[in-house]
């Protein structure tokens, strides 16, 4: 009597995980991948104010790459993304190493460095906008101290505005990178370090030769997290520079918004979104590939 019943329960138990994840799987399939396909399709049409479903080929992409605003946005993305990732990792790593020296009040200091990450980019952008405003920020303060020739008008300069973005973004993210590295530092096998120092290796050599190489996976995670932060950056630009002066500091996400929602150029906006997706994929796919391959070997 009880045997068939058990069998049914057994079966249910076996498919239960599938049943439980099915709704979220379906939702993600539709709302993420479905709309990626929709956007890809729209980017091959001549949609203007309203979506239009007649395919016209790659004309929107041609127009996209003829637009000066887009080339500026793309170039900015590379400058911003590269500097942001490199500087945030270097600073985060240094902070983590310094915090790892068994100093007093480490918990409090760690929290202080980590906190900027809890602030939204809008706030970061607005605060830095005021700090970098020549007439009420840092420049005025330093000049007030007597350094009359000091000048710090990055947000007002066509060539420097994108570096102002880097600065604010690094300020926000490096504490987070520090936390990542700190936990990795703590998980390094202490016996190896002891063995190395018994062999007479200097602390510097231990970091360079042993600890940092063993943290390779953390470097990878940091790069991936920071890279997607960089590519989807939108609010920081809006709050800090408004894309200006002119459109000198726009990023692709701002371009996409401008085209799709303000200029009745849905097809071009969709095309730019697809290029952004391709950029993310160019970073993510090799990473996932190496991760998955690594797991098989391990």
């Amino acid at each position, binding site marked *: 009597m009880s045997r068939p019943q058990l069998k049914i329960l057994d079966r249910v138990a076996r498919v239960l995980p599938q049943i439980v994840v099915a709704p979220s799987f379906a939702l993600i399939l539709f709302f993420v991948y479905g709309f990626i396909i929709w956007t890809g399709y729209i980017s091959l049409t001549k949609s203007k104010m309203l979506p239009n479903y007649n395919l016209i080929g790659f004309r929107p992409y041609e127009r996209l790459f003829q637009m000066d605003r887009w080339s500026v946005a793309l170039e900015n993305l590379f400058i911003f993304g590269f500097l942001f990732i490199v500087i945030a990792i270097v600073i985060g790593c240094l902070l983590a190493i310094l915090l790892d020296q068994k100093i007093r009040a480490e918990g409090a200091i760690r929290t202080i460095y980590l906190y900027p990450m809890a602030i939204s980019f809008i706030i970061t952008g607005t605060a830095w906008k005021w700090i970098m405003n020549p007439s009420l920020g840092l420049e005025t303060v330093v000049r007030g101290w007597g350094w009359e020739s000091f000048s710090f008008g990055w*947000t007002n300069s066509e060539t420097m505005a994108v570096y102002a973005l880097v600065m604010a973004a690094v300020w926000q993210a490096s504490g987070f990178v520090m936390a990542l590295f700190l936990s990795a530092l703590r998980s390094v096998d202490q016996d190896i370090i002891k063995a190395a120092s018994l062999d007479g290796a200097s602390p510097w050599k231990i970091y360079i030769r042993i600890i940092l190489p063993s943290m390779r996976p953390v470097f990878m995670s940091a790069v991936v997290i920071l890279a997607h932060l960089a590519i989807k950056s939108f609010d920081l630009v809006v709050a800090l520079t408004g894309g*200006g002066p002119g459109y000198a500091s726009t990023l692709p996400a701002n371009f996409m918004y401008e085209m799709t*929602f303000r200029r009745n150029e849905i097809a071009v906006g969709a095309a730019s979104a697809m290029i952004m997706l391709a950029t993310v994929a160019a970073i993510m796919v090799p990473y996932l590939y190496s991760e998955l391959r690594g797991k098989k070997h391990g």
Partner: protein
Amino acid sequence: MKSFAKALVSAVALSSAISAAPLMAEPKAEVLHYWTSGGEAKAVKALQEAFSARGGTWIDAPVAGGGGDAQAAVLRARVLAGDPPAAVQIKGPNIQEWAEAGALADLSDVAAAQNWDSVLPETIQAIVKYEGNYVAVPVNVHRVDWIWANPEVLAKVGATVPTTWDEFNETAEKLLAAGIIPLAHGGQPWQDATVFETVVLGIGGVEFYRKALVELDMDALGSDTMVKVFDQMRKMRGYVDPDFPGRDWNLATAMVMRGEAAMQIMGDWAKGEFAAAGKVPGKDYTCASTPSDNGYLLNSDSFAMFNVKGDDLVEGQNLLAELILGTEFQETFNLFKGSVPARTDVPRGEFDECAIKSMDDMVAAADGGTLLGSMAHEIAQAGAVRGAFIDIATAHFNSDMSSQEAVEKLVSAIKLAQ
């Protein structure tokens, strides 16, 4: 998904239709707008009260923020879902685009009954008509080509408000020498474009403006006159202070009020800032049109009526249209908003000196054929073309691009956007 949304929308529509059924054909209108702050909100409230007083049910659908961008997204979604609001605040060529998409209702009956053709200037009629039929109702007219000046500051260098661009440059040089900022300006793309279009009108004249910015004549866009326009823009760049990037327009207005700067080129919404600070026109500030051959750049807000089903909704649209263009509402609304009425026969008693000058100039410009739509404010151009103009104007103003290069970029950008 789309069919599900449709089903949902029709279910909601059905249930509201059932509940509304006993009150047959009582006027009702859902109004989608982005007037949510200050004088604008008061102005909308006045319309709402007038509508209720005539027995109508007003469903308010304000979408705050983004200068209409957020509203445009809502509108697109509503139309695609087959459930458009009755009246929507849209303007300029966007009206034509929606009309072309077949989404707008015909208002010819109200227009004929209220005799709109005889009270609206032709330039404004052209904005709100599609294939000869009214599809939208103009609410107001803002003039864009204004100089707001602080007479006291100008007097310091023995100058008055300039009436030619040469005089403008001379006065500006004198102000610079005296350590005063000649031009209060905010470096946001739309503000750069606002100055740009007044310079196009001033340097090129009415006909050139019409050819280049309205008809997009490639010869005019690539002409030597356009080079001169950019030369003047380069001079103007020297007349603003170094902190101008990103500044909001009302902060620039405040600089004129405080006497830090002498002049601002801005539409007449700037008047609201002066009024809020208790400043008196003619005494604390003067309003003058930017130098041109009697040109008048207008920015006009309007409500377009969308195709809706149901007697009560159509009734509501007609009543709304009648009220919006009625003398009474045109007067109250524009007093709140700081603009002038779109119709030319509204009593002038309550309006200030700048508004009266604006009304006189508008009538004169309409008669003389020099009444033009603003490019920067989405009357002459919208969407991609307007964006292309703004891109080039702001890129030139904020860099050291040569005038020749700017003209070349302008021609290719406009071609690309068409």
